[in-house]
């Protein structure tokens, strides 16, 4: 039987994929901290629900709404969860295709309170989203 935190994480990812922002935010603690690598509009430390919305809106905007997200695997314990996501997006003649390990710690109410967003091929990810920030969409 799947760990409840794995089921919760699948629900959170599903909410993002379907554009269900309230459903997405229900998964996160009010004071969530979200770490994303690189040097793009979707890089840095994002705090609180406002930060989560800003991060995911940035992904959607930067990919021109083309982002495809598939859950490949979920690892879950009582305190941490990691979901491995196959993420791809296209913008004009550019394409990004990465495996993202999205790592989260769990607060005492079962909500994500610290999250790390780890694309495996960071240079490729940076190039794609840096282009978006410089008006190359």
């Amino acid at each position: 039987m799947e760990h409840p935190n794995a089921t919760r994480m699948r629900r959170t990812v599903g909410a993002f994929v379907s554009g269900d922002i309230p459903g997405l935010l229900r998964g996160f603690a009010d004071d969530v901290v979200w770490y994303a690598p690189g040097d793009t509009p979707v890089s840095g430390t994002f705090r609180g629900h406002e930060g989560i919305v800003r991060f995911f809106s940035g992904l959607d905007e930067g990919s021109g709404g083309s982002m495809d997200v598939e859950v490949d695997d979920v690892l879950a314990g009582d305190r941490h969860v990691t979901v491995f996501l196959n993420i791809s997006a296209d913008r004009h003649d550019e394409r990004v295709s990465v495996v993202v390990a999205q790592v989260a710690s769990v607060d005492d109410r079962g909500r994500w309170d610290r999250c790390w967003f780890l694309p495996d091929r960071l240079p490729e990810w940076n190039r794609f989203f840096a282009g978006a920030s410089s008006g190359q969409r």
Partner: protein
Amino acid sequence: MAEHPNVPRIRCALDVYNSGDYDAMKAFMADDIVWHVGGNHEMSGDYHGVDAVLGYFRDVRRKTAGTLQVEAEEILANDRHASIFTHVTAHRDVRTLDVVLAEALTLDDRGRWSEYWALANDQEAVDAFWT
């Protein structure tokens, strides 16, 4: 829930890493391992193959005079993937590193590490430490 066999295997690998016996680390790595070091510092980049990764480990040990230690807060693993929440501390001259690293691993069919990538909770501190 029973612990997956790859969890104690990774715990053992971290102990070996902390001991500095890098030749013994070979047993945990696939020959064609790819090790991604993120950030924006002199160690950033991709290391391909066991020898390159061990060279990176030795470089880290030399630059930190053997002070870098990793302590797993939690290890998650199944047959294909692993994830480690690691408290990393090190000293380098007057600089100190104290961060939590979220690490992701893909595993081959023998449980050996085939790809590694990670992100710290304070990447700027990591960049400053290595630069």
